[in-house]
């Protein structure tokens, strides 16, 4: 469970308990104002918390509870036992929702009814003249739930729907399905909230008909604000109310659902003039109806239809009569009415009782709501204009912040804290200037602030605002012209006397403030310096065994040699611990990167109309800062891939027999000296055949490989450079980011990535990264008299192979090792050295078996030497251009060890 939800639940339980206890105390002291205030505060805070989550059912109830307690503490409502009962019941409901949230991580859609009932009970004791409820609410879902059928289906433009569609809907309704008219008016600001209302509308289940309209006539194109949503969506759907409410769960306040009785669809339409004479037909039809001869009536209707032009109103009425007869579910009165209208040429008027007979969901609890009133956004009305380089959000924010400072400074009171208030407003304005790169105005701001402080009045600063952020009216309408900062800061700010610069101290933090922090904040540079020093220490300590060797071999002092070795052991231990301690400082938990995913996954999956449960595990696994930071982008790519292409839409999942909600699991674990991150989804997986074909088409594999390659090998082809070109991207990874980018990023920090996938069951990406980059364990090999380092994580084994056992296959050398053919390459040759590999006295060659991806390869060298921990420094200067080397390290004897980059030379 994500930490925020966890925190919410644990705190909510405390609050619920507190509410219960306070209520009990109030029973004994019903007039205690402190208790009432406390009770209000508890409910209020809990409501505030719940507003952070998508739990409208809970928030609605808590909001009603808060209003009730507010009325009680202000003596607008009288505390009573029944009132306490209502509140307690509501809190039990909240507690139950908490349990459900804890168990499932979300709420099922089934609580709307209870929620509405509880809200009603809580609102009842509040006097009706209390207009608080009617005040504009920031969150419309908090408005009291209203009963259904605010709208009559007769008011809807159903006749705008093509007849064929209405007939189809009629059939489905007769088959027992509910019909709903959907009216979705997205919030004007919805684009800023990452929503795509059109996408949401397109996902409407069981849509029979759809339409899009502008809410108002369009302004001239030059004045159009593309990011203010002006559309409304309509639809006729055969989905159940529950499914629709689920689909529009996040914007339910913007949606109106109206149950459509099937007869409301029976609207003949077309040209009212012309056609054969119908009087006889109508008389015959009535007779047949009276006689109960429906088959006869069907025959008459058919022949009459053949005589009528299809575009006639009469023909349309006949088709409806035909359909109603065919399905045969209506009462006789319906047939009578249809026959009557052939005579009157007026649409049938259905009686309420007839409409009610048709299935509808009108009796269900509902979220029907008309909410056409513009809702107050916090901040200010968005100025529609463009401001260079400021995004619409930033421009809005700037306008709002400046407007707020204007209000602060215009206050006419003069409290003791006025200077502080002025300084803070000046600081806020300075922030605005810095944010829009209008540094030139900072000085005039300081001047104006100084005069304001001197005069103990906001007026000088208000004047400064008028000059720098001009036009009061623009706050409400047009753009504020701050795109380009006025060339020279207007001097006419109220300041009369310039103040010496040294007097202006505000805005700078007092240096002498005493801090008592629990943790130290240390500059990265200092830690890096420590790392360098410990690196030198490791090298210096490596000199000791060399020294001991010399003491014995050159000077013949065996005892001294032994002492040095003994001391080396001690120093070695201390250095290792020191190294560990420094590494520890750089360690960060994986949760640092994990924490952004709940939000990311929620937003993206919402946008895509998918249901995804994100499970994060092992967030406390630690790794070096560099590694953690390097993890971020690859993880985002992989998660996006899973959401975009892995996890299916709820509909597809159900069709595939899976749970509608997909699961995405991010798990971090430590495996010896590596941190492993697994990203697994239960989506549709990758089809190896598709990959094979693409790889073949791109020339990445030849025909032989195409036939022999295993499914797993095929899946891993997505990492091949050159695979993720345009069309493959759209198949697999989208957004123009291929998996080879992920691989490159991970390999940059010595990590590896593997992908396994089972078609239809999901994919799993496994990232394996070193815990730390700082220390590299290398094996030293000798070739042509030189020493080279090979990173230990590449080394599989060292073996000596008799020269006779080396075979030559097509100019390549190979040897059979442990039953497998291992290709051999001479290191000298790879490095462009002319010398042949040397063998030992038994004519055996030294073979260093290394791992490259999934393959093993033998490197022919002259000899193996010890393994060492080194601090690898990247090559500098001219050498940096040589890809064959990963870097160098200083050795104990002062020599330089060059570490090979095997990937490059092989």
């Amino acid at each position: 469970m994500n930490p925020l939800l966890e925190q919410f639940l644990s705190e909510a339980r405390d609050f619920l308990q507190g509410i219960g206890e306070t209520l009990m105390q109030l029973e004994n002291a019903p007039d205690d104002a402190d208790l009432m205030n406390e009770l209000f505060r508890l409910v209020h805070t809990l409501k505030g918390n719940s507003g952070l989550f998508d739990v409208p059912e809970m928030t609605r109830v808590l909001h009603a509870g808060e209003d009730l307690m507010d009325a009680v503490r202000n003596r607008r409502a009288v505390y009573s036992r029944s009132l306490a009962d209502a509140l307690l019941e509501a809190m039990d409901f909240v507690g139950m929702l908490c349990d459900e949230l804890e168990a499932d991580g979300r709420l099922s859609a089934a609580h709307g009814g209870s929620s509405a009932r509880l809200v009603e009970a809580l609102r009842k004791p509040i006097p009706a003249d209390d207009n608080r409820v009617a005040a504009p609410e920031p969150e419309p879902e908090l408005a009291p739930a209203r009963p259904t059928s605010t709208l009559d289906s007769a008011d809807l433009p159903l006749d705008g729907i093509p007849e064929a569609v209405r007939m189809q809907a009629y059939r489905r309704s007769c088959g027992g399905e509910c019909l709903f008219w959907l009216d979705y008016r997205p919030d004007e600001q919805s684009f800023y909230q990452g929503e795509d209302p059109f996408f949401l509308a397109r996902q409407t289940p069981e849509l029979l008909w759809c339409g899009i309209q502008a809410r108002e006539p369009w302004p001239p194109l030059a004045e159009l604000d593309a990011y203010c949503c002006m559309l409304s969506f309509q639809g006729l759907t055969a989905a159940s109310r529950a499914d629709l409410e689920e689909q529009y769960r996040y914007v339910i306040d913007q949606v109106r659902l109206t149950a459509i009785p099937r007869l409301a669809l029976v609207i003949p339409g077309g040209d009212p003039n012309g056609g054969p004479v119908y009087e006889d037909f109508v008389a015959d039809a009535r007779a047949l109806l009276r006689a109960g001869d429906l088959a006869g009536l069907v025959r008459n209707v058919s022949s009459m239809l053949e005589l009528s032009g299809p575009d006639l109103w009469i023909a349309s009425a006949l088709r409806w009569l035909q359909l109603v007869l065919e399905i045969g579910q209506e009462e006789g009165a319906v047939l009578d009415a249809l026959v009557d209208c052939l005579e009157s040429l007026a649409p049938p008027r259905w009686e309420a009782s007839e409409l009610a007979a048709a299935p509808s969901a009108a009796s269900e609890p509902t979220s029907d709501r008309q909410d056409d009133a513009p809702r107050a956004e916090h901040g200010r009305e968005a100025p529609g204009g463009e401001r260079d380089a400021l995004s619409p959000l930033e421009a809005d924010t700037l306008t709002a912040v400046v407007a707020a400072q204007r209000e602060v400074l215009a206050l006419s009171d003069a409290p003791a804290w006025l200077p502080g208030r002025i300084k803070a407003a000046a600081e806020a304005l300075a922030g605005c200037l810095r944010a829009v790169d209008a540094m030139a105005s900072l000085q005039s701001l300081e001047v104006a602030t100084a005069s304001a402080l001197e005069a103990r009045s906001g007026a000088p600063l208000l004047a400064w605002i008028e000059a720098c952020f001009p036009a009061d009216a623009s706050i409400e309408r047009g753009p504020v012209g701050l795109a380009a900062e006025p060339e020279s800061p207007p001097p006419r700010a109220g300041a009369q006397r310039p103040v010496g610069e040294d007097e202006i101290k505000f805005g700078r933090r007092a240096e002498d403030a005493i801090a008592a922090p629990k943790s130290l904040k240390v500059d990265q540079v200092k830690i890096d310096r420590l790392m360098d020093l410990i690196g030198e220490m490791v090298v210096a300590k490596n000199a000791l065994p060399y020294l001991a060797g010399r003491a014995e071999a050159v000077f013949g002092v065996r005892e001294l040699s032994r002492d040095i070795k003994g001391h080396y052991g001690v120093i070695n231990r201390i250095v290792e611990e020191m190294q560990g301690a420094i590494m520890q400082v750089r360690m960060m938990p994986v949760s640092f990167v994990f924490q952004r995913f709940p939000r990311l996954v929620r937003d993206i999956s919402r946008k895509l109309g998918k249901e995804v449960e994100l499970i994060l595990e092992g967030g406390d696994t630690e790794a070096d800062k560099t590694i953690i930071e390097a993890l971020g982008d690859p993880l985002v790519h992989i998660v996006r891939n899973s959401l975009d292409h892995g996890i299916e839409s709820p509909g597809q999942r159900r069709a595939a027999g899976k749970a509608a909600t997909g699961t995405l699991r991010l798990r971090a674990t430590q495996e010896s000296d590596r941190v492993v991150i697994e990203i697994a989804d239960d989506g549709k997986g990758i089809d190896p055949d598709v990959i094979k074909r693409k790889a073949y088409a791109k020339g990445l594999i030849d025909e032989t490989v195409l036939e022999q390659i295993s499914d797993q090998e095929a899946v891993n082809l997505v990492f091949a450079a050159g695979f993720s070109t345009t069309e493959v991207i759209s198949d697999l990874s989208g957004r123009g980011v291929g998996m080879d980018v992920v691989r490159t990023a991970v390999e940059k920090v010595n990590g590896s990535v593997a992908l396994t996938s089972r078609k239809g069951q999901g994919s799993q990406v496994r990232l394996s990264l070193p815990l730390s980059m700082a220390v590299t364990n290398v094996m030293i090999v000798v070739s042509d008299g030189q020493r080279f380092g090979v990173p230990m994580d590449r080394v599989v084994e060292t073996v000596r192979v008799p020269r006779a056992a080396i075979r030559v296959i097509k100019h390549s050398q190979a040897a059979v090792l442990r039953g497998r053919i291992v290709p051999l390459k001479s290191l000298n040759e790879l490095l462009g050295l002319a010398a042949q590999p040397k063998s030992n006295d038994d004519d055996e060659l030294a073979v260093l078996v290394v791992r490259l991806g999934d393959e093993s390869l033998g490197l022919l060298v002259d000899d193996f030497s010890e393994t060492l921990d080194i601090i690898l420094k990247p090559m500098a200067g001219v050498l940096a251009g040589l890809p064959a080397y990963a870097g160098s390290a200083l050795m104990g004897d002062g020599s330089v060890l060059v570490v090979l980059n095997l990937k490059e030379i092989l």
Partner: protein
Amino acid sequence: MKRILIVDDAATVRLYHREILEAAGFEVEEAMNGIEALERSLQAGFDLYLVDINMPKLDGYGFLRELRGQDLPQAPAIMISTEAQPSDERRAYAAGANLYLRKPVKPEHLLAQVRLLLGERRP
């Protein structure tokens, strides 16, 4: 790194704001009520305050009045409340707030406001 003090009695709200702000690279500290907030801000200055209204011991208005009454450098404060009445907004400004937001605040909005008040642009 800019330091922000979150003043709210609800741990959930504090965590919510902390996650948003820390993810954006700000350093965050917390106080559970006005008294604690005052103590912390007198110990060490902050670059910005996020202040709830309704809190035990000392509420948000009281905290801001005390803070603004100090003869010290003053940092901007955002008052975050669930109250919708315009009168609350005026009260907040009078007490020394520089911006008034209603809960729940959308992360992108909060960040835009915080960045602006701190004089920073998009990262």
